């Protein structure tokens, strides 16, 4: 075992055939990822300089004009500000709230700690599509749970998903319902990783309650929080796509669209492939920045999202 440990990660010498065998093993995954991720990324970059309606045999080169149009478009500006609004909603619901819940969990006894963790994680295994339909029923103005309660409280009826003032929040709540448990799980796992001795030592020094959290525990949880923050930004851009696509298609009057949904809408609603590609490239760059910053700050490198 010692021998194994000492050499782990290092390749063995299998002679001249080693490299070839290595390439053969990685070939299927590398080829598939190349064809279905990097090829389309480059193709999208190319298309972003063209105007094309997806069916016409001719693609017209237009230089930077798609990008220029994007900068001037009120629709895109709206999509950007909505993306920021989603980020604020989700920041509150799936970053701040689970962090508080993580604090709360440390005061529970083992049985409840396990029970809460399982129950709060449960919605995470449900697809965003199903979550969308379930919430559509809860939000439904006729006979829906929320409307009925609202009515019983004597309030003026609100059609949550059709009212431009409430639709974005209503979509954010759907995503938050699903995503809460994942972030909560990461935060509790991160906190469990703080050594018991550190906690003990701090308490011996008189750190209790808020002081303990403020000066010892939350800072030690910092890298996890940064990771969860970047996951939350990804959700604000990417996860909301499914409920938007299913329930509002960006409306009413553009109140729920976001930058990622605009990629779909420009290409598959209005057949402006070039313009859609220009937006896609900008979204890619945005994700690149978020990921790079997150990795630099916390040295964590992995996330896995349902798509």
């Amino acid at each position: 075992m010692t021998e194994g440990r000492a050499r782990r990660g290092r390749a063995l010498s299998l002679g001249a055939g080693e490299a070839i065998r290595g390439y053969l093993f990685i070939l299927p995954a590398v080829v598939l990822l190349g064809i279905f991720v990097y090829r389309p990324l480059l193709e999208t970059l190319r298309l972003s300089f063209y105007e094309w309606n997806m069916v016409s045999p001719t693609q017209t080169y237009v230089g930077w004009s798609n990008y220029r149009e994007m900068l001037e478009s009120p629709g895109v500006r709206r999509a950007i500000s909505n993306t920021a609004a989603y980020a604020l909603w989700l920041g509150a619901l799936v970053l701040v709230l689970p962090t508080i819940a993580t604090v709360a969990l440390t005061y529970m006894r083992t049985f409840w700690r396990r029970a809460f963790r399982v129950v709060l994680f449960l919605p995470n295994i449900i697809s965003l599509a199903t979550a969308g339909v379930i919430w559509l029923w809860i939000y439904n103005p006729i006979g829906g749970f929320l409307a009925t309660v609202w009515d019983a409280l004597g309030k003026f009826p609100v059609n949550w998903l059709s009212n431009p003032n409430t639709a974005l929040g209503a979509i954010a709540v759907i995503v938050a319902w699903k995503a809460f448990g994942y972030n909560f799980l990461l935060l509790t796992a991160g906190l469990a990783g703080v050594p018991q001795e550190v906690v003990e030592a701090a308490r011996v020094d008189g750190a209790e309650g808020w002081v303990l959290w403020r000066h010892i525990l939350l800072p030690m949880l910092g890298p996890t929080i940064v990771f969860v923050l970047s996951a939350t930004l990804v959700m604000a851009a990417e996860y909301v796509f499914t409920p938007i696509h299913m329930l509002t298609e960006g409306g009413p009057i553009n109140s729920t669209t976001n930058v990622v949904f605009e990629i779909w809408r420009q290409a598959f609603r209005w057949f402006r492939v070039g313009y859609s590609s220009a937006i896609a490239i900008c979204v890619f760059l945005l994700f690149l920045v978020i990921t790079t910053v997150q990795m630099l700050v916390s040295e964590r490198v992995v996330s896995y999202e349902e798509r």
Partner: protein
Amino acid sequence: MRNAEPVQEGWSLDTGPLSRAAWFVFLLVLALLALFPLWWMFTTALKPASQIFAGDLSLFPRGATLDHFRRLMGTFNLARIMGNTLVVAAVTTGFQLITSLLAAYGFARYRFPLREPLFYLCLGTMFIPIQVIMVSNYLLVSDWGLLNTYAAAILPQAASAFGVFFLRQQLRLFPQSLLDAARIDGAGELTVLFRIVLPTIRPFITALGILFFINAWNQYVWPVLVLTDPDMMTLPIALREFMHSEAGHDWGLMMAASTMGVLPALIAFLLAQRMIMSTFASTGLKG
């Protein structure tokens, strides 16, 4: 070698009974908010139609009925849709496991030029949103004449960067001496991988497989583009189709359909709850 590690239990702090009670109530409210939509879905699916539109908030159905499920079979081709979802999810999972295992073994155990750059190129694909590349992939799949086939839904997802990363972590820990011993005995490379290495990492493969399956079962963004024929749709896509059809306001029917979408993932979760949560937790861990 080892079992998939359970999520660490963590330590606890003491506090006064009052503040403990307050924290408990806070968590209880969150737990009820997490469970309520699912409960509401189940009970709506079981309520007789007369109880659904009466502004009736009763949390339990009076005289539960499977009527909505029966109508679901009749109105929509539920068996076909469930079959489509199962085929797409199972085959996607199988492909992802195989390609991940092979690549992870190659990256962990062989030395070849460009190994590190290729590995990071694989890893990088995790950070590219599917919506950025979906238009171009749609055009490719359409050019190949694959629209509305299982292949269209499966092929672009047949490799998983996360799977490569996750299994590589495990394979790096495998003792070199065992591999060398097997080779001296004349075992071929694939035999070593499948007969010697694979059995020792089976718990990780299972955990990863469950994670892949749940994600494939749930996926929406890609199949909604390529599976537009009602006979080929997977369940999440069919849900959208139901919603926009005349049945869109037949909530008993809609919730019965949603229940069918939730059940497989829910059963998997209840059976392997610890394993699933520890795998999910590891998706956020340091590399």
